[in-house]
Structure formats: structure tokens, C-alpha cells
């Protein structure tokens, strides 16, 4: 999980290679840096424009992608080398030489880092920055035995670089500096980063994968043949989706007005139109809304078939309740709903009944599953469609509230006071204390979450 960053290198390198393509890449020019002319450089603007064109993206995204490339060391700034940021202006940038790419298996050893710091120290006496000074001192202690070698190497490298043209020298110095800015070993433990070993292995396989991937995919994603069921579902719920269609009267997160939530609690006396409409979409919608389930129960009571829903609820309680109480609950359910002459007898077919009775000998969490499913589908096929055609439901629909979508407030900068709501844990605690006072010893059935 933490190593994930390294798997991205081949993909980034693909982008870099495309950028340097002689025909389709960025047009390189000589860039001025104070009085020196650096060859093969480009401006921040060039980079952003190229990305925008190549990937058909907006400026903000192109800047973001380019910035990531700079931060990972593939492109470095010439003007403020320590500030690894992409500026969309005339600031000069250069591509980092592949030798210094972070994905190379090049171990950034202490020795190399020590040589680099020593060179810098010699060249610009006392101009090492704080963390560099710290590292230098730490290294000096740690690899003291090879310090002569370090100094010798540093001096030798400086001498060789003096013989190069000034432009080349500047470029090489910038490249090295950029490399160490990103790859310097951490201060506390100056050991070669273990990740380097893994990087090599992963980058090879990733290269294959990414090239295969880019062959397969075009610029847009592959929206393949799409089952119509998804289309129907999304269309049906379109006006119920606050992100697609707005939220009557307003989205609380945007306007700080909680009316929308207040209108949709579980204890509201008149539900909203959208909510009542949703109950007609599918049976599960009706059952999973506590208010919907309550209204449905009222209807079933009128039809003298409320025991079906009660049975279903009792079975849910077994399935999702505490393990220790299963045998007790199963016995109660049997007595209340399945035993001959039971007060709330439910009509289960003989085959299912047989199977259930067999399972009762060894009560487990799933023993009521078959019977529960039978009753569920009974309600779904019979009671539910009739409910939707009933006067009870039709009245709900007629009386339902349909709040208007409010326009944005005239003074948008006047922030509304954000009301807090009672913590569900507090509500539950209060109910429990209340219940304790009233309870006469009958078992407590856990109720579904009540929203404030």
C-alpha cells in the first residue's frame, strides 16, 4: 500500500518520452538563465500547453499533471531549483536525464550523497542549507573511515567539471541537485533506501502492463454494451438523486438549511412526495424506510394479514441479532407464528414448513431463512401491489408535501447558524432509560436506527 508510488514511474516515464518526441513533443529552445544560455530547455507554459493538447484536458488539470512530473524529478526548474513546482509562465525547465530518474535501480548510497555534499561544500564554502549541514556532519561521523576517499572523489569530480563548457556545467549541476532533492536519504537513518530494490522489479513488469493498457484503451473509457436494467434504474432514481436533480427545498450542505432533513425524519406525520413515490419503486424500498414499513403495517392490519410482516421482522431479528439469544428467539418465533394454533399463524407451504421444523432441532441463525423468504415473496407478489393501489397509499400521495426548491438567498455571504442535532447515541440512551422505567420484563427487540 505504501509502496504504491513506485508503480507509477513507468506511466510517468511514458508521458516524459512522449514530451521529448522529436516530431510531436515539446519544441525545445535555448533558454536564458541570467547571462548563460542553456540549450534544450522549455518554458513552463510550453509544458502546460503540450499536456492540454495531447490529453484534451483543461489548463487546471494540465498544470496538476505537469506539477506531479516536476515533483517526482522528471522535469526540473532552472531558475529556482529548490522549488519543485511547475509555473505556467516563461520560467525555464529541463528534462532530467534518464540516468537520474527515480525509477532506476541506482542505489542512492551514502557514499554518493557524501561526495555530492562535499563537492558543494568545497565549491560554495559554508553554503550548505541546514538539513544538508546536518547530513554532512552525520555522514562525516558515520563513514569517517572512508572520508579521505570521499574528499578525493569530490575534488576529482570538481576538477573534471571545470573543464566543461559553462552551459554544460550548469546543466549537470542542476540535474544532480534536482536528483538529490528528491532522492536524498532521510536524515534519521542514512541507509540506502530498501525500496530501491523493489522498484527495479516492479518497474519492469509494470512497463509491460502499461504498454498493454495504452494499446487497449482509447482516450475515453470503454463504455461497452450496457445492460438496460442499469439505465432504467438510474432514470427512475434521477429525480431522487440530490446530486443530479437538486434537493427540495435545498441541499443542507450548500445552504446550511436543514429543512430537507427535518421533512424526512422517521417520525414526521406527513411524508414528502418524493419519499412516498419511492416506496412504489420496489418492495425493499418500502420495507427499508421505517416510516414506509409503519404505513404498510397499518394497511396490513386492515387486511388482517399483519402477521406476515411481523414474522418477517422477527426473522430479521434472529438473523442479525446476538448469537447467544438465537435458540430463545427461534423458540418464540415458532410459538408465535408457526406452531399449530399460533396466535399469529403465517401460511407457509408444507415443504418449507417441513424443512423449518427439521432445522428447529438444531437452531441456528439461518434456520428461518426459507420460511422468511417464502413470506417475503408472498408479500411482494400479493400485499405490496395491492397496497400501492389502495386508498391508504393514494391518500398519502395526495397529502404528501412537495416543498419548492428555494432560490439562493439574496445575501449569500450571510451564513446561517448551523444547528446541531442530538447524537443518536444520546437518543438511544434516553430511550433505554425511558424503557427501563416502563418495562415489565418482556424481552426488548432492538429497533432500527432512528434519525433525529
Amino acid at each position, binding site marked *: 500500500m505504501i509502496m504504491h508510488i513506485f508503480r507509477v514511474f513507468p506511466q510517468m516515464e511514458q508521458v516524459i518520452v512522449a514530451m521529448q518526441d522529436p516530431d510531436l513533443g515539446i519544441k525545445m529552445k535555448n533558454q536564458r538563465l541570467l547571462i548563460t544560455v542553456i540549450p534544450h530547455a522549455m518554458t513552463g507554459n510550453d509544458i502546460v500547453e503540450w499536456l492540454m493538447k495531447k490529453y484534451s484536458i483543461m489548463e487546471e488539470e494540465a498544470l*496538476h499533471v505537469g506539477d506531479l512530473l516536476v515533483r517526482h524529478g522528471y522535469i526540473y526548474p532552472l531558475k529556482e531549483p529548490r522549488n519543485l513546482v511547475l509555473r505556467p509562465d516563461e520560467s525555464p525547465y529541463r528534462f532530467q536525464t534518464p540516468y537520474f530518474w527515480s525509477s532506476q535501480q541506482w542505489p542512492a548510497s551514502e557514499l554518493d550523497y557524501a561526495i555530492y555534499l562535499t563537492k558543494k561544500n568545497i565549491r560554495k564554502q559554508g553554503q550548505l542549507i541546514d538539513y544538508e549541514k546536518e547530513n554532512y556532519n552525520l555522514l562525516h561521523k558515520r563513514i569517517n573511515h572512508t572520508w579521505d576517499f570521499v574528499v578525493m572523489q569530490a575534488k576529482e569530480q570538481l576538477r573534471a567539471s571545470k573543464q566543461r563548457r559553462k552551459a554544460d556545467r550548469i546543466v549537470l549541476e542542476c540535474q544532480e541537485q534536482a536528483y538529490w532533492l528528491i532522492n536524498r536519504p532521510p536524515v534519521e537513518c542514512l541507509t540506502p533506501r530498501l525500496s530501491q530494490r523493489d522498484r527495479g522489479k516492479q518497474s519492469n513488469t509494470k512497463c509491460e502492463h502499461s504498454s498493454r493498457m495504452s494499446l487497449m484503451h482509447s482516450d475515453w473509457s470503454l463504455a461497452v*454494451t*450496457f445492460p438496460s*436494467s*442499469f439505465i432504467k434504474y438510474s432514470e427512475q432514481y434521477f429525480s*431522487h438523486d440530490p446530486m443530479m436533480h437538486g434537493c427540495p427545498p435545498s441541499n443542507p450542505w*450548500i445552504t446550511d438549511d436543514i429543512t430537507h432533513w427535518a421533512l*424526512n425524519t422517521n417520525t414526521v406525520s406527513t411524508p414528502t412526495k418524493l419519499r412516498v413515490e419511492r416506496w412504489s419503486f420496489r418492495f425493499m424500498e418500502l420495507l427499508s424506510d421505517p416510516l414506509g414499513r409503519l404505513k404498510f403495517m397499518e394497511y396490513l392490519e386492515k387486511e388482517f394479514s399483519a402477521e406476515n410482516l411481523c414474522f418477517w421482522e422477527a426473522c430479521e431479528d434472529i438473523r442479525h441479532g446476538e448469537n447467544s439469544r438465537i435458540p430463545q428467539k427461534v423458540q418464540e418465533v415458532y410459538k408465535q407464528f408457526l406452531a399449530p394454533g399460533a396466535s399469529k399463524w403465517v401460511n407457509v407451504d408444507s415443504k418449507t414448513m417441513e424443512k423449518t421444523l427439521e432445522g428447529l432441532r438444531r437452531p441456528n441463525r439461518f434456520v428461518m431463512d426459507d420460511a422468511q423468504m417464502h413470506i417475503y415473496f408472498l408479500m411482494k407478489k400479493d400485499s405490496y401491489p395491492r397496497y400501492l393501489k389502495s386508498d391508504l397509499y393514494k391518500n398519502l400521495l395526495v397529502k404528501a408535501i412537495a416543498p419548492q426548491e428555494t432560490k439562493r438567498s439574496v445575501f449569500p455571504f450571510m451564513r446561517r447558524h448551523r444547528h446541531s442535532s442530538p447524537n443518536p*447515541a444520546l437518543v438511544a440512551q434516553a430511550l433505554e432509560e425511558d424503557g427501563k422505567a416502563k418495562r415489565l420484563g418482556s424481552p426488548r427487540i432492538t429497533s432500527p436506527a432512528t434519525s433525529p
Partner: protein
Amino acid sequence: MLFSPWCALEEQFIANVSSPASAARARRSGRVGLATASRSTSDPHPAEMATHELHPNDTLTTLKMESENLKAKLEEERAKLHDVELHQVAEKIEALGQFVMKTRRTLKGHGNKVLCMDWCKDKRRIVSSSQDGKVIVWDAFTTNKEHAVTMPCTWVMACAYAPSGCAVACGGLDNKCSVYPLSLDKNENLAAKKKSVAMHTNYLSACSFTNSDMQILTSSGDGTCALWDVESGQLLQSFHGHGADVLCLDLAPSETGNTFVSGGCDKKANVWDMRSGQCIQSFETHESDINSVRYYPSGDAFASGSDDATCRLYDLRADREVAIYSKESIIFGASSVDFSLSGRLLFGGYNDYTINVWDVLKGNRVSILFGHENRVSTLRVSPDGTAFCSGSWDHTLRIWA
């Protein structure tokens, strides 16, 4: 009640060509593609091969070859079905208009990378966990912190809010999942009432309560998922089948409520039956670790986000991948995904600090959201779909609407 497309197609094959009469009937009813189209003079018809009786000369290798042949032909026919069926329909859908979403709240308070978050059923509270071991419960609407727990371990990679709103579960490098009942007594130390529920042999990557406060489903770096009874801490069911760390899971919103999907470092997404512990479906099309899985609201499909920088949609009834959400300019992996209420939008949090919003049906990217200053590690849409929350390594959580 599982629909296995393989079985159905095979049955159709055999039924259609068991007699010339039924073949003619099939042609008339329009199911030509299956029965007669694949009939060629050179190779034997797959259905004939399927009803072929065993001969003494049949060796294991010839039978294997036959079965491979059958499989290939079935796949061909399956593909044909899909191509003819719905190719045009996706194009008829109206494209989405301009999409504007902004950060409406920024929750600051974590001292280190935010790794996970979950919504409370009251639509405004959330729980979040971070690398420094802190688990915080917020009222995201007012941005007030209501509870805070310090875990004894760092990297708390998983947290979940109980359906009742009375407890939270969390875990990570301690290999455990613990449940903390939320107390409103300011003087009470939440850690005192902690209940250790799950016990794995490697880090806990994800956890979720099932329909009640009494059961928890967990996934772990030890390659397994498990279902636990909260009260006793007893293991109710374990799920073996992933070949590497399991990174994520999601419970199905189906009527029968008995399945869940998990994604892992073995690039596989597996669908499990909670009763039997069996893996009933498996999908392996991603090219890297699957960091996040989430069911489509109807329960007929699920989306996944992976390190290969793509998100994909898998249709459970068709038993295949039906869409890939990717773009060349998106190079970094997706860490977390979730759907909007209608399932039309898919939100993906990525390791390049951005959130990409996809049109699930048409397959194009609708919007890109900037704001976080480090990788987005977790993303969930609120229970009523009014907003979504993103958590990031930049120590903050943001609510977008």
C-alpha cells in the same frame, strides 16, 4: 437464488439442438444465434459434443480439449448476445450537463494521514481514523468533534459506524477490530468500554457492520475475510480464496442480503455467500491491486478502483466486466470509489490528490475536483446522497456537494 449464465447458455444449447424440430422452433423464435449460427460442417456442434456419450477411447486429454472448445464457443455466443442486445441503448442516453461540486466543509483535527471514514445513518455524522491512531466522531454539518478515541496502534486503516449510531468499530496494524460504544459522559474514557471483536493474523484493512450492531464483517492483510458476533467475539464464518492481502469489502444491498464483495492485492474481486462461506463469483480483469469495491445501488453490479489507474464496473448477472473508467491523463491509482444515489455518477478518489467524477452509463469523465493537498485515501457518499466525504493524507476531510 443465483443466476449462473454459463448454466443457462449450456442448457439452451442442448435444448435447442436435441432434435431438428426444436432447432426449427428456435430459429422461428429468434434464438438463431445460439443454435444454428455456430453450425459449421467442419467442427462438431458444441451441444452435440455436450450430449456426446463417453466412449472407451476418450482420454483425459481429448475430453479436456473438448471442454476448452466448448468454453470458447460459449464465450463467443455470449459475446454475440451482448453485442446485439444493447449496443445502441447507451448512446440514446442524454449526456450530463455542466457539473459543479465544491467543498462545503473542511474537517481539521487529525494530526496525521486520514485513512478511512464512514457515515452515520443520521446523514450528518461521520467517523474517521488516521495514521496516528486517533479515531474521531464528527458532526460534519457543524464540523464539531463529538468523540475521540486513541487506539493503542498506529495506522488505523478501517473504521465503521454502527447502524444504530451508538458505537464505532475500528482497527488496523493491531490485527484486530474493536468496537467502542459511544458514551456521552464527558468524563468517561471511551477506551475503557472497548470490546475486542475480530482477530486476524495480519493488519485489518476494512470492516463493516451488517444490518445490525451485532455482527461485523472484516477483511485483512492475511488474505481472508471473516464474519464475527460482536457480543461474544465469536467467529461466525470465514472466507478463504484470495491469494494475497484483501484490501476492501462491501455488503450487497440485495433483498436476500446474503452476499458481499471483496477486492485484493491478487487483482481479484470475489463475491461471497455469507451463509456458506463460498466464493460464488470471481472477476480478474484489473492489472493491479484493487483498493476499493462498492455495490451499484440496485445490487446488480459493483464498481472497483485499482492501482492500475482505472475504475471498472462488473455486472453480476451477466458475470462480466461491462465498463472501464480511465483516461490517459490519469496516471495514479484510484484508492476509493462510491456511487451517487441513482447510480448515475461514480466518484473516485485518486493518489494524485484529485477526485474524478464519472458518468457510469456513458463512460466519460464528467468532472475533476481539486482541493486535497495529498492523496485521497477514502471516499463515501452520504446515506441520503446529498453529499460525499473524502479523507486524505493531507490530514483533512472534505464534504463536497
